[in-house]
């Protein structure tokens, strides 16, 4: 069983499954630190914090947006709105994919008109998800400003989209996958970011 060459850290929860070819690039503590820094950057760049509206892109964006909101609430001493916006119905690759992708939850508890919307995603790559999210967002109203948080920016952009707040830049090979793992529906789930490369001789 060739599943040794994986970097495990102290905080890596046992229940996150490890596969051959996995490389942990950010553990739970690292994620927490990155979000705390991003929270300060958000405060620095936006004067009117009462107008903030964090909109998570499921699934990975959901726990990150909640944690970011908690950090912001501590700094700003006021409540921060959090919504969830699925981008699947706005994707530009639905024709190409054979099996239809499963839809995910959308919960937008408040109007976006006039608000500073901060989209929160786990991994930014091509920029196509952010493009879809912006289109979806506009169907909910007219935000005064839209900014983007990505915990991981792995490059390979295909659209002219800039990430405003990056947790960590991770140069990757396009064929590798980068995933946020550990989210199971609860905010307390320890998370980690894993780079996964297909191991050619995994079975040998």
């Amino acid at each position: 069983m060739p599943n040794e060459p994986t970097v495990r850290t102290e905080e890596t929860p046992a229940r996150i499954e490890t596969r051959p070819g996995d490389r942990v690039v950010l553990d739970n503590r690292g994620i927490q630190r990155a979000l705390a820094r991003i929270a300060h950057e958000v405060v620095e760049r936006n004067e009117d914090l009462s107008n903030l509206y964090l909109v998570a892109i499921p699934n990975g964006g959901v726990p990150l947006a909640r944690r970011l909101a908690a950090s912001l609430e501590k700094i700003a001493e006021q409540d921060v709105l959090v919504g969830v916006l699925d981008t699947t119905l706005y994707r530009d690759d639905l024709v190409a994919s054979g099996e239809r992708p499963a839809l995910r939850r959308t919960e937008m508890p408040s109007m976006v008109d006039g608000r500073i919307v901060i989209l929160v995603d786990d991994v930014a790559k091509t920029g196509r998800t952010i493009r879809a999210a912006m289109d979806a967002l506009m169907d909910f109203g007219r935000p005064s400003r839209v900014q983007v948080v990505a915990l991981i920016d792995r490059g390979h952009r295909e659209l002219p989209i800039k990430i405003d707040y990056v947790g960590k830049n991770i140069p990757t090979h396009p064929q590798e996958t980068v995933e946020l793992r550990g989210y199971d529906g609860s905010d307390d789930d320890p998370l980690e970011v894993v780079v996964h490369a297909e191991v050619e001789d995994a079975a040998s």
Partner: protein
Amino acid sequence: MIGRDLLAISDLTAEDLWKILETAEHMQEVGRRDIKKVPTLRGRTIINLFFESSTRTRTSFEIAGKRLSADVVNFSSSGSSLSKDESILDTALTLEAMAPDVVVVRHGVAGVPRRIADALDAPVINAGDGAHEHPTQALLDLFTVYQEKGHLEGLSVAIVGDILNSRVARSNIHAFTKMGAEVRVAAPPTMLPVGVESLGVKPCTSLREAVDGVDVVMVLRIQLERLSGALFPSVREYAATFGLDREKLRYAKDDVIVMHPGPVNRGVELAPDLADHRPSVILEQVRNGVALRMAVLYLIAGRAPAPIAEPKQ
């Protein structure tokens, strides 16, 4: 596996049904938005090919398609060349030449949608064929019950009415039994198909027996316009014995819901006050129909198009 077409519930697995219900739940959220439209099927064309009159099913498919940004074209038998004796297949092939991405078919004869599906490249959705199946109606019924009860397994469902001639009954029998519900059917003996037990349902010859302790009563429309042979002595007698009213509903569970695929013959199969108020959920069914059909269109339409065929010699 949900295939290219949606022709019958009997073709689907419980897993397929769950996938459709889950998708419908998300589509419901789109319907609650201020702007009830998503760009998913932009540039796709849906043809509603209705050889039999229908208002709610056709409108429901039309709204569902439009909410997904598809272009929807209605083609009904009245005022078309169908009344000029063009054969069904010729009509279908003519439409095919206009390159639709989905064709929704209703026809009075069982099996026509499948026949059309075999002839066309575009996926076909059966919107009711004769006394065979009406899959999207059963799906929206499942969806409504699931939303009301929170689960489907272990529920008991009574279907009352012309089981023999009802495509709604047939599709619902398949749908609810696949999901682990217990299904009873009740009708005068002339309206119960022989050997209906083989579908996994319990036949009852009285309404009292059928509704006893059930979670759901599904009342079917007596198709007065189609009753050529005498299946029951008179409408009044049917109403008295198999028409559902609050008195007869007492034997069901306290939280029973009453469903009807519409349009209701008030005072025949369903008492008027019951048609308008809880526990009947008839308007919920209509509402859910749009979200459910959006789900079906999403799962079926707009898949990778078949490679363009070489011109035939």
